[in-house]
């Protein structure tokens, strides 16, 4: 026996570690220096056991009667998991590796069965109520955009009616009626209306005081755009000072600065963990319902997110110029102005643009709780069963968000490429000044307009609603009675399972679909390139609409509850995973494929040895990322009838039980922060 073989075997006799793992799962692995694996196995076993017991007593999941004993059949896969762990420990003792697949399989069986049950999945409903779904689908494809008046009667003029109208027109036949943009469409976009003249018109002498003039009244979509713009502007401005306080390299220059740094980072993490929509619930207690509340909620979350990104950017600047300026005798403010700010401007701008994209998406749903914008419009129309009106809103959201997504991405690209201008390409300064002046005036006009239509009111900001003090007080003294905590944790579990099932379902559909949306695979001929455009189009449209807006469809289809919420999340998961997967496929390095092909491998072997190793790690990483996102989204999906913790939260808020709502928020913060941490660690380990 050589020395190297000896060192490979920490325990020559496999029996002890097998016994250890039999008594406490993972202990054998732990003692054989496989600390992480052992700990993980122990934690998984413990979690599974708790889940089985909890789901059995609460929901009767997997209930079987064995004579007089009532128990869950889910203990069986857990026992199998336990056995696998013993075999794993034995394999390690013999310096072999044992496949982890059975372990994953048994754990997955337990988790998915429980998830399936507690999320209330009833596949039969999908079929049973398929006719309802078809009605909604028909309505969605025929949005209320055009109205036709036939003998004084107004009707929605959808595709079929439009087709016959246009063909009548073209053929010179008399049309069936007169068409115009529908009231619904004008509600979304905006309309001209006689309104009392605004102050600036009177002051400019354009109108008499008190007279009525034709004014453009913004529709809900315009209001939404304004909310997103204002929130992005405010949060960028506010995040700058915050980010300096949260940047370690700046704060460590002061005595006591490090304490401020840790405090600031902590606050930012907590604020960020609470979703914009939940902030909406809190803000309406402060300033009341309306777009202004929406702007504040978006701003709060956005400041925290940008503050973190900005401060990381400040921490990663090149320290050379800072050192150089300190050496010239410049003071701290001058050093920041001349050595720090020029370095961070491009990345700050890029992050703000990214945040603009995110804020626009949130702005489309903030109305669910805060009132105002297209979200509020959707709540109102769907409550009255106006699915064709709702459809118009969805299309409007899709168009706006796709545009914003595109513009934001293009501008970010332009900013981050950041090439020094060639001397000869510099334009004359006069023209530059003129352009600058034009942009400044345009910017100011847009700012004032948005300020007006989002009804920003400093007065209501300074005069919080009468319940706000109570809310703060209750949030500090949250309700920790076992009964409340139990309910909250149960609902949180439902939420986590919802997110998990949605991720799984979305990924299952996205996996084959993503190959269709990969340009390097589909761009080879005329036919498949169209398939590619179609697939990308579907993904982009679905991705542009927030899960909260989809819930309505599924509530109509399968009924209110976690199942509907899960399906809505699955749609957005499918869209995002599909995009990420297809990009991962597009980024495959051709080199290994060429090399493996050159050895004479068959196509199947090429896939197995050159393609799969390149795409599996990013795929798994994206799945974890998506689960992390979905847990956040699932915490709010209940606001629209999607069940889970969101429902609990709105119920507590609605009944003014703020101390219980505080418990919910606290649990959400903890879980989201844990998920964030765990998902980052897991993804790091994968790459």
């Amino acid at each position, binding site marked *: 026996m050589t020395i190297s073989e000896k060192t490979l075997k920490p325990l020559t006799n496999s029996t002890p570690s097998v016994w250890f793992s039999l008594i406490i799962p993972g202990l054998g692995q732990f003692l054989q220096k496989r600390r992480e694996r052992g700990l993980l196995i122990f934690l998984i076993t413990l979690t599974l056991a708790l889940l089985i017991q909890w789901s059995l007593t609460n929901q009767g999941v997997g209930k079987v009667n064995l004579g007089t004993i009532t128990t869950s059949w889910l203990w069986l896969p857990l026992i199998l998991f336990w056995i696998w762990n013993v075999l794993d420990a034995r394999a390690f003792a013999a310096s072999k590796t044992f496949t982890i697949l059975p372990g994953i399989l048994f754990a997955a069986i337990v988790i998915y069965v429980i998830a399936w049950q507690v999320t209330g999945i009833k596949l039969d409903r999908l079929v049973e109520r398929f006719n309802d779904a078809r009605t909604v689908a028909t309505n969605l494809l025929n949005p209320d955009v055009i109205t036709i008046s036939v003998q004084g009667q107004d009707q929605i003029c959808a595709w079929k009616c439009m087709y016959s109208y246009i063909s009548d027109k073209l053929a010179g036949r008399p049309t069936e009626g007169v068409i115009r943009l529908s009231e619904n469409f004008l509600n979304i976009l905006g309309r001209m209306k006689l309104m009392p003249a605004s102050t600036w018109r009177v002051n400019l002498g354009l109108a008499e005081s008190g007279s009525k003039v034709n004014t453009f009244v913004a529709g809900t979509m315009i209001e939404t755009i304004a909310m997103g713009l204002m929130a992005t502007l405010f949060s960028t401005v506010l995040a700058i000072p915050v980010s300096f306080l949260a940047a370690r390299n700046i704060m460590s220059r002061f005595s006591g600065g490090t304490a401020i740094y840790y405090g600031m980072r902590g606050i930012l993490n907590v604020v960020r963990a609470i979703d914009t929509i939940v902030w909406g619930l809190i803000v309406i207690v402060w300033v009341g319902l309306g777009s202004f509340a929406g702007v504040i909620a978006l701003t709060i979350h956005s400041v925290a997110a940008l503050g973190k990104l900005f401060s990381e950017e400040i921490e990663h600047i090149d320290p*050379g*110029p800072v*050192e150089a300026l300190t050496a*010239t*005798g410049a003071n701290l*403010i001058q050093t920041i102005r001349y050595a720090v700010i020029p*370095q961070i401007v491009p990345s700050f701008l890029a992050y703000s643009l990214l945040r603009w994209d995110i804020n626009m998406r949130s702005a489309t749903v903030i109305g669910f709780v805060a009132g105002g914008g297209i979200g509020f419009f959707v709540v109102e129309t769907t409550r009255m069963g106006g699915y064709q009106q709702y459809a118009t809103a969805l299309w409007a959201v899709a168009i706006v968000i796709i545009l914003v997504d595109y513009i934001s991405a293009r501008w970010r690209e332009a900013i981050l490429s950041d090439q020094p201008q*060639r*001397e000869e390409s*510099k334009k004359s300064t006069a023209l530059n000044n003129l352009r600058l002046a034009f942009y400044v005036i345009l910017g100011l006009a847009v700012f004032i307009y948005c300020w007006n239509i989002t009804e920003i009111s400093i007065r209501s900001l300074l005069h919080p609603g009468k319940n706000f003090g109570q809310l703060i007080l209750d949030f500090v003294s949250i309700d920790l009675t076992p009964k409340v905590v139990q309910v909250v944790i149960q609902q949180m579990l439902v939420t986590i399972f919802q997110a998990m099932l949605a991720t799984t379902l979305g990924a299952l559909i996205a996996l084959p679909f993503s190959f269709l949306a990969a340009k390097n695979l589909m761009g080879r001929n005329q036919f498949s390139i169209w398939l590619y455009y179609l697939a990308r189009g579907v993904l982009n449209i679905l991705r542009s609409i927030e899960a909260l807006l989809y819930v309505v469809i599924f509530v109509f289809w399968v009924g209110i509850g976690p199942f509907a919420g899960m399906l809505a999340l699955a749609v957005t998961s499918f869209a995002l995973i599909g995009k990420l997967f297809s990009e991962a496929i597009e980024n495959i390095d051709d080199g290994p494929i060429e090399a493996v092909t050159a050895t004479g491998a068959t196509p199947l072997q090429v896939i197995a040895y050159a393609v799969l190793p390149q795409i599996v790690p990013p795929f798994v990483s994206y799945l974890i990322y998506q689960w992390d996102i979905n847990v956040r989204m699932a915490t709010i999906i209940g606001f629209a009838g999607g069940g889970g913790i969101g429902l609990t939260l709105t119920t507590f808020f609605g009944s003014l039980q703020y101390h219980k709502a505080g418990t919910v928020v606290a649990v959400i913060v903890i879980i989201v922060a844990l998920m964030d941490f765990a998902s980052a660690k897991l993804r790091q380990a994968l790459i």
Partner: protein
Amino acid sequence: MLKVENLSKVYPNGTQALKNVSFEVKDGEFLAVIGLSGSGKSTLLRCINRLIEPTSGKIYWDGQDITAIPISEMRKIRRQIGMIFQQFNLVKRSSVLTNVLSGRLGYVNTFSSSLHLFAAADRAKALASLEQVGLANKAQVRADSLSGGQQQRVGIARALMQDPKLILADEPVASLDPVLAHSILKYLEQLNKDRGIMVLCSLHFLDLVHRYATSAIALKDGELVFQGLPKQIDDSQFKAIYGQEAERVSVV
């Protein structure tokens, strides 16, 4: 005159970068600081303008002990001490002119400089400094559009804005081609001879030391192992500084 007495520096991680270093530099000297990487050259230069706080020892600048004064006073001393860096340390996205003007920050008030308002005299001075390093036509371009040698000349122009009495140069030519190395060192030599600015310059190549320096010190593991004229560094001295394995190489 610069006088360093028993200077020591221990970093928080326990590394002793300087051990009881003492030496004197007379006005008008061009002092080369030599030694291996990690021998304490950079720490020594940075202790002189207190970018790094020395652990113990004294530094006398024109008879004043600058290790004892508060940092606000030190900023006034720093104005007299220009510094040039291996990586140039320019703000890449700012224009060459702004980089040069930033050398004047120690003299101007915080408020107006924050708004990028500089006196006409300062602007003229910046252009004159650029003229002196042969980059007057590059004032408006971004610093990162220049080559390495040009960027280092901007670094010199920035130091000139301070009206320095002393220039600390931390391996100013280590990132440059040998030909450019001579051009940069010639500028420093010119400033040293024409304006009488004292120069402390850490260098790697011994023939550059012979060519430009008027005196030299050598550090090894944080200790001063040589002090004298450049030409006194013979082969045995060389091996004492750089170790027995070292071979002399020359630069163009």
